[in-house]
């Protein structure tokens, strides 16, 4: 039976599958089907010649949710909220994104103002009725919503994190008046304070409910019709996965479903190589993503923003993006400085060398001018060298330097821009780059990995064996994972530990129940506790891992210590004499999924790994550089830079001063000479 990972991206749908009995692996790449993306999934299976009936597990990452949100393409959504708070999702936190720009627009609210309704009922911060729920008023609003044609409704009341009874009553009335509608409650979506984040997340859930229900139903039907009877799972933004029936209820957890697969791959590397601390990087045509796997786990954030002041405040992988990719355009600004991006030529018109109408110099053009790209892109396209040279020359003229110098400068600046994204995530989270290895994914990533690593003083790089279908591969290497949270606000030395024990036990029960839904046996369940804590008087919390066992006043000192250490790890400072407090508590419930063993490439000394040489420009001069065939590399092969390793969907550039070797798993491990 096959264990299949599928990643539905904006352009391509990738597949990776491993056979549990034979150990055989297969990968495939087909075009994403824009109208109904579930068709592309079936196409990928067909391309790989895998019959749905032969699949035991299908794990699936998708950008469907993200696209629906970004394009605002979902059935009309309404919102019911507390009087006086109709505009929380429109006003946001009243800040602007660009400090000194005269013209800047806010993102369009996910629910337009005309579909945002208010009720007079009101709870206090202690959960008491300041103003009771009025059934008749609620019923009128429900009828109005039905008349206006909204199909999904977000219910978001102030202080509902303390008690959801008003929200639950509103749902009952809505379902009585309007039985077919979808409903999302803020008290069920994020049980924590701060209305902007909670309302925004709930509205996102409401918008996605009809979209993802329809998508997964189509996918399940398409697979079912072809004999599929295995487990269908979805990748979550927290780096784990969940069953599709649960994903339909919690679609807001799918927003970073695409990149999560790549991070899972990095996590897999941390388990199968000597590296436990990995920086995951992914470079495509327009953006570069960076995130961290720290001691084998993807680092999470609670501060995710879909767009400016559109937060989704559930734990999500901390992935930082900068506008740097193969299509990024080089330009000279008014102060005479060379800049690259964030404007991108994308794939249409694309870089100048694609000869599709693009005239501006892009990163790809600079690579091509320097000889670092194969002139046929692995036989897919014939690149136009004259166009690339003309484009880069225009930049060179403006700077008063020669063409090759300009091309190297464009690459260097791009690498520095990408290093910024890595710096942001590392130093924001208090991590030292020298403790990490850089893992490079994506079509354009491995071309620049060595230079980025050098800019960051990261001594080692790994280019994974399946970089071309990284997210799909990662999808086959994931665990079920749920992050559950609940509000609990008290100083550590005044905490009600009996209540805390009960709350933790309750979250753990929920976690076990969720894992059981996806078929995880009791023995395979892993539960861990944590809390959001801060110094008394502070406003921002730090995620603090806590140990197991009954909590009690005797352990208060130990809990405070755990917080001081977590605070120091995040922010570089701690204040051991200051009192600390809880803001919320949480449980992570994970369950490992059995997956087939994947065999590395066999040593085949007969295979010819070199396929000739070509001139490549590095550091001010031309070098005659050996070209290697990536698919033929086997464990033990060693390569000294300068060299180029060509794969089907990507290319690795090894500049002078690098040493590479292939490990047992087929990964290319690179060391920089002279790096710390």
């Amino acid at each position, binding site marked *: 039976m096959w264990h299949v990972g599928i990643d539905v991206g904006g352009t391509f749908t990738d597949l990776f599958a491993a056979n549990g009995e034979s150990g055989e692996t297969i990968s495939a790449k087909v075009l994403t089907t824009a109208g109904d993306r579930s068709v592309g999934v079936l196409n990928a299976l067909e391309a790989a010649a895998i019959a749905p009936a032969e699949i035991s597990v299908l794990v699936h990452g998708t950008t469907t949710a993200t696209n629906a949100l970004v394009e605002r393409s979902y059935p009309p959504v309404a919102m019911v909220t507390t009087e006086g708070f109709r505009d*929380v999702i429109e006003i946001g936190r009243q800040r602007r994104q660009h400090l000194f720009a005269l013209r800047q627009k806010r993102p369009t609210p996910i629910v337009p103002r005309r579909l945002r309704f208010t009720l007079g009922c009101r709870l206090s911060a202690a959960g008491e009725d300041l103003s009771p729920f009025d059934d008749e008023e609620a019923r009128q609003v429900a009828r109005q919503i039905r008349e206006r044609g909204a199909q999904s409704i977000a219910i978001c009341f102030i202080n509902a994190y303390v008690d959801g009874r008003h929200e639950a009553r509103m749902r009952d009335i809505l379902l009585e008046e309007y039985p077919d509608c979808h409903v999302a409650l803020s008290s069920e979506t994020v049980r924590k304070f701060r209305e902007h984040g909670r309302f925004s997340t709930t509205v996102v859930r409401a918008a996605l409910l009809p979209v993802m229900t329809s998508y997964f139903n189509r996918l399940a039907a398409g697979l079912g019709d072809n004999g599929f009877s295995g487990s269908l799972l979805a990748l979550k933004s927290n780096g784990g996965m969940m069953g599709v029936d649960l994903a339909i209820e919690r679609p807001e957890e799918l927003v970073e479903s695409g990149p999560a697969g790549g991070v899972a791959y990095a996590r897999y590397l941390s388990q199968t190589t000597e590296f436990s601390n990995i920086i995951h990087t992914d470079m495509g045509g327009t953006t570069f993503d960076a995130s961290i796997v720290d001691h084998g786990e993807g680092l999470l954030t609670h501060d995710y923003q879909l767009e400016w002041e559109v937060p989704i405040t559930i734990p999500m992988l901390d992935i930082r993006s900068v506008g740097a990719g193969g299509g990024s355009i080089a330009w000279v600004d*008014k102060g005479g400085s060379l800049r690259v991006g964030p404007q991108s030529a994308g794939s249409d018109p694309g870089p100048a060398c694609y000869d599709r109408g693009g005239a501006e110099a892009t990163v790809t053009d600079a690579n091509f001018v320097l000889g670092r790209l194969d002139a046929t892109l692995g036989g897919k396209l014939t690149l136009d060298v004259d166009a690339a040279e003309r484009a880069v020359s225009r930049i060179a003229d403006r700077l*008063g330097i020669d063409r090759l110098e300009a091309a190297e400068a464009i690459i260097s600046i791009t690498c520095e821009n990408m290093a910024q994204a890595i710096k942001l995530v590392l130093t924001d989270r208090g991590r030292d780059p020298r403790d990490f290895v850089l893992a490079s994914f994506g079509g354009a990533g491995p071309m620049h990995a060595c230079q980025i690593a050098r800019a960051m003083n990261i001594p080692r790089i790994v280019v994974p064996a399946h970089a071309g279908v990284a997210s799909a591969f990662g999808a086959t290497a994931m665990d079920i994972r749920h992050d559950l949270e609940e509000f609990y606000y008290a100083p550590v030395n005044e905490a009600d530990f009996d209540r805390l024990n009960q709350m933790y036990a309750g979250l753990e029960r929920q976690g076990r129940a969720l894992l059981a839904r996806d078929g995880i046996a009791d023995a395979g369940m892993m539960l861990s506790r944590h809390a959001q804590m801060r110094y008394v008087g502070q406003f921002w919390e730090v995620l603090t891992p806590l140990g197991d066992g009954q909590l009690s006043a005797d352990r208060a000192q130990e809990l405070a210590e755990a917080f001081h250490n977590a605070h120091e790890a995040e922010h*570089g400072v701690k204040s051991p004499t200051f009192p600390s407090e809880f803001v919320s508590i949480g449980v992570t419930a994970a369950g490992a999924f059995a997956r087939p063993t994947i065999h590395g490439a066999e040593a085949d000394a007969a295979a010819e790994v070199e396929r000739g040489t070509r001139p490549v420009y590095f550091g001010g001069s031309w070098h005659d550089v050996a070209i290697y065939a990536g698919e033929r590399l086997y464990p033990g092969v060693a390569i000294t830079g300068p060299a180029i390793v060509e794969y089907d969907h990507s290319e690795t550039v090894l500049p002078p001063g690098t040493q590479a070797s292939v490990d047992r798993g087929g990964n290319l491990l690179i060391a920089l000479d002279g790096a710390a």
Partner: protein
Amino acid sequence: MDAVRRNASEIRDLDPVTFEVLRSHFDFCCERMSKVLQKTAFSPILSDILDYSNAVYDADIRLVSQSPGCPIHMAAMHFAAQESVNKYGKESLRPGDVVVLNDPFQGGTHIPDTTFTMPIFSDEKLLGFAVSRGHWQDLGGGAAGGQSFGTHIAGEGLRIPPLKLFNEYEMNQDLLALIKNNTRCPEYIEGDIQAHMGALKVAEQEFSRGVARYGLETVEIAMRELIAYTNRISRSRIEAIPDGEYAVTDFVDTDGFSEEPIKLAVKIVVEGEKMTVDFTGSDPQCVGAINSPLANTFSATYLALRFYLCPEAPANAGLFDAVDIVLPDDCWLNAKWPAPTIGCTTVTAAKINSSIWLAMSQAMPQDATGGTMSDVNWLVCAVTDPETRRQTVFSDLPAGGWGGMNDMDGASVRFDPTGNCMNLSAEVAELCYPIVYEAFDLRQDSAGPGTHRGGLGARLQFRFNGNAELSIETSRTLAGSPGVEGGQESRAQRLCKLLPDGSAEVIGGLADDGAWHNPLLAAYRFAPGEAFRIETGGGGGWGDPMARPVEQVLDDVLDDYISVEEARTSYGVVIDPEERAVDLAATETLRGERRAA
């Protein structure tokens, strides 16, 4: 193209890659400083409202880079750094020395803005300075937050001259004890100091990383080149403006004592690549607390111009060098001891910014913008918990609208250009303070009408469970934000008190009977069960409202941004509220009459 080529060759001492790398290195350094300050500070005004800035300076105390924080701190901070360094002398400063000050007449602005200056060394050589400024919750004075609105600076809190708070990383405990004795919030002080120190240490780390990688000399050259770069961009923008004089007169409603509004006259003179901003003609130093020390006036001027001259360049001394500022000696914009100044960073800075934008709207009509609400409505409230008797202090800064422009409506409820602060979260407020936060939503019909209307203002309302005192600095209560290019003025601001029986009383601005009330409230008392409400102003409109497309007016009505009545009176659009549709015939007639009239 030629200008660009000439400019390019001017970055002569650094290759383009190193220049670009170090430029982002300094930006990154300041961003990291801010992150540490925000996440570890104790004053909510720092951690949640984000009223702070961090910057790095070269060894001559010229600004190299600054974090995106609070623009009004932008150019004021080097005055503070200079005073701090002059006090002790460059040669006597050691690594880990930190000088603190808040004195408005020695490089400060208003008392709560507290500045920390630390020298940065590479081995023994002085490389530059790291500076961290934050608005502290309370440093004493006659009302919470120093908002006493008296006639003397002594009433606004503890005035700290440049003093060493740290000697080689060791805190001066005597000074700490003195500060803690002079605040309503002693529990915040040590945590805030620790947060500032954390930010300064980040700058030390980042500088030493830069030096380790690029070498001392390259880092020094880069600092110089960055300033030259911003200067080139600013000068080329000025050169593109037609030579001439662009003058604007605006007013602050009152200084709290005056019967007449206080006048601000500004004239921008452009000659070639030189710009002069002349405040001659503005009123003399006034009695009340809106006086602005020189550092604050300069800062407000530079930040306003930055939007027009060099928004994308690093915020640094290169802009300061491109602009001359003329200030009369006896002027409320050039305050001297013992003038009270608490309102200078809010009311006055916003007014300076708004006036300069109106002048620039003449100079660069393609970027003309309707008036911003031009105030930050900084309120500070001390409220006593009826059960514990404990008094807590909190702040909020409810924003208003920005102006319409030639291609867009103004933004609603967006913080004034002089800052970029968050509002207070209702749920956080109710958890921490004995209040019920009853509303923060859009104020219908508050926007200035126009082809592109202004943004809307807000309605903020909270009710007190215990006895409370509220202070607020506000203006634009006599008239709203002006429109441009035929656009109209917005609705003015208003402060109200709501009694438990539901009745409302205007306590600041124009009441329904036409009477006007002083909108600078100092320790205004509220009893339990009473509520405070502020209705903030919208932005001014751009272009004739009669030219606004009918369907956009209908959309505004359907979204309740404007009322059916406003659609008719300001836009000449007749809407049937039952049908939710435009009466096109009636609209054509009405608009025809308006055009004829």
